[in-house]
């Protein structure tokens, strides 16, 4: 255990209960908007099933789709790069910029570049990166990672954002009106868009049939960056492919309704060929995805379209905050993706769930998230990423429960203890007791009662 883990980070988050309530309510409100949008589409469940089947087909035929996509994209004039891991991805970006002697880049939202820690890498190599999504710009100014894949600064209050803008963008002290702050960011980032020669965007969907890719934003920042820059670099995980253009109809209907309850993002831009005089590059990134593809129990996680619905609905995420997951992607989906990248580092995440199953129900591509959480727990324990104390406790439990006699004796002792020596249970060492009373011990168990009364 070499870093602070989810239980400790959530304990810290829960020290301010008012803030937890605020965080929980805000995300629940988004979940409610999602429900309203979903219930407005009578064929919603058929859409989810269709999307799931399309993504299953993608995973089962990914080799051919990648080859098809590359050929079509190249024919369209897009330069295609392949990156086996985060390091290679970052090097490709840097070399593209260096070749054109560019030292400044504007970036729209890309969780993949968060996963690759691209910003830190580029900054170390003398490239100034500005995130243009408002939420991402805010966490960038705060020197924090995003806490949510769709709502990067959902953990920040407007007064804190006002303070950041006061320090970095020169707004008046004490201003926290979202309208004014957004206008300030608009002016600041217009300047950025107009002066940056390079733009990096993420990719929501790439189409094998045509070699084009689609980027969805509400703010228009991806387009502002890409259409003004000399060079547009798009980074995508290899699982973002879909077979045909017509399949976008299914995914674009599901994506934002699941994410925020909107019928569609303001902009759904289809990039097929570079603009006259512009360079367009796409980097296809593996970074552990092919390993996950080989794990039969977990490969479904690669169907994810990054809508964030599982985070908004997760009762644990809402009460622990995105940063408690100490990973680029938080919440239930992060908890099944992260152990594939580093099982030891993220061994705590599959346990940060009650397995309530709400995540699986909201997932627009029907990933069996809570079942995978259960399965990761088994893998993590088998691979030895657990504590000796926990293993010992479980062995004692097995020893007790595997014999009816030992079980009855243990029950008797347990009830006797709670009744006659509550201080041995009701103390600091018992985490249950910290915020909850112990159950009252009845005078006899059901089996004892049954023996007398049958």
């Amino acid at each position: 255990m070499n870093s602070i883990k989810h239980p400790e980070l959530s304990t810290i988050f829960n020290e301010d209960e008012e803030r937890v309530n605020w965080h929980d309510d805000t995300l629940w409100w988004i979940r409610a908007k999602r429900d309203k949008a979903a219930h407005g589409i009578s064929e919603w469940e058929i859409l989810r099933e269709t999307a799931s089947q399309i993504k299953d087909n993608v995973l089962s035929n990914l080799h051919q789709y990648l080859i098809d996509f590359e050929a079509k994209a190249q024919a369209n004039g897009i330069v295609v790069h392949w990156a086996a891991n985060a390091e290679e991805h970052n090097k490709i970006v840097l070399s593209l910029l260096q070749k054109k002697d560019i030292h400044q880049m504007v970036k729209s939202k890309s969780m993949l570049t968060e996963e690759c820690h691209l910003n830190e890498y580029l900054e170390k190599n003398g490239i100034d990166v500005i995130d243009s999504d408002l939420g991402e710009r805010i966490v960038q100014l705060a020197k924090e990672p995003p806490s949510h894949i769709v709502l990067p600064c959902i953990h920040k209050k407007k007064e804190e954002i006002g303070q950041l803008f006061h320090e970095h963008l020169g707004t008046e002290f004490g201003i926290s009106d979202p309208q004014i702050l957004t206008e300030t960011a608009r002016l600041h980032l217009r300047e950025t868009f107009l002066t940056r020669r390079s733009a990096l965007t993420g990719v929501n969907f790439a189409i094998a049939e045509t070699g084009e890719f689609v980027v969805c934003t509400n703010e228009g920042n991806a387009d502002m960056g890409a259409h003004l820059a000399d060079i547009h670099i798009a980074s995508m995980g290899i699982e973002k492919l879909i077979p045909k253009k017509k399949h976008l109809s299914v995914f674009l209907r599901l994506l934002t309704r699941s994410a925020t309850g909107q019928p569609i993002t303001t902009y759904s831009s289809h990039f097929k060929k570079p603009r006259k005089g512009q360079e367009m590059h796409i980097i296809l990134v593996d970074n552990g995805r092919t390993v996950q593809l080989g794990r039969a129990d977990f490969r479904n996680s690669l169907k994810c379209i990054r809508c964030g619905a599982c985070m908004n609905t997760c009762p644990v995420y809402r009460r622990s905050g995105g940063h408690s997951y100490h990973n680029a992607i938080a919440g239930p989906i992060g908890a099944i993706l992260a152990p594939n990248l580093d099982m030891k580092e993220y061994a705590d995440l599959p346990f940060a769930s009650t397995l309530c199953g709400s995540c699986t129900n909201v997932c627009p591509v029907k990933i069996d998230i809570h079942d995978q959480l259960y399965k990761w727990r088994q893998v993590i324990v088998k691979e030895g990423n657990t504590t000796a104390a926990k293993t010992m406790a479980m062995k004692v439990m097995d020893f007790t429960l595997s014999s009816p006699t030992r079980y009855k004796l243990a029950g008797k002792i347990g009830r006797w203890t709670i009744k006659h020596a509550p201080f041995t249970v009701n103390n600091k060492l018992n985490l249950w007791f910290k915020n909850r009373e112990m159950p009252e011990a009845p005078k006899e168990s059901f089996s004892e009662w049954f023996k007398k009364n049958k």
Partner: protein
Amino acid sequence: MSRAQILAAVLNNQPLETLLPADLEFDSPSKDLVIEKFVETITMIGGQVIKIKSLQDIENYISENYLPENRILSQLTELTNYYKFSGDESPHELENTDFAVFNTHFAVAENGAVWITEDQMGHRVLPFITQHLAMVVKAENIVANMHQAYKIIENQDYGFGTFIAGPSKTADIEQSLVLGAHGARSMTIFLLEN
């Protein structure tokens, strides 16, 4: 190197091929209902609809809402009084555009999205960089849903195409909706009726 390595790993690890599902087909409501739904959706997502009988009506709208010194761009041949551009200028020169009007292919009732391709934009950046945006949508060109939309797009070729649904927006600060994040502050649909 990495290409071969990634492709080999994919081939080795991908599961047995599963079939693609059949295309989704839904009965389309009547044209009147589709138009009504479109107007309702656009309004909901922060846009406005102005019904027009001919493209000349747009000139009236502009003269009522903009000053002579405003920079107004359009490639619509019917609109004669406004600044024309060749498409060869640098996109940066389009900064300070106050209002831009575009022809479009079609619009979608279920989400208010309007489909527009590069040839209709003149410059890819123009629909985004303009302060205020307007699109001409012919009433006959409104489809009910995205499945119908892609039946049209499927057969189109373009360098760049985009769905635009309403003005640019953000809710990143405490989920308060603010219009006019980086793109257009407003979107007007000129709904051309026969």
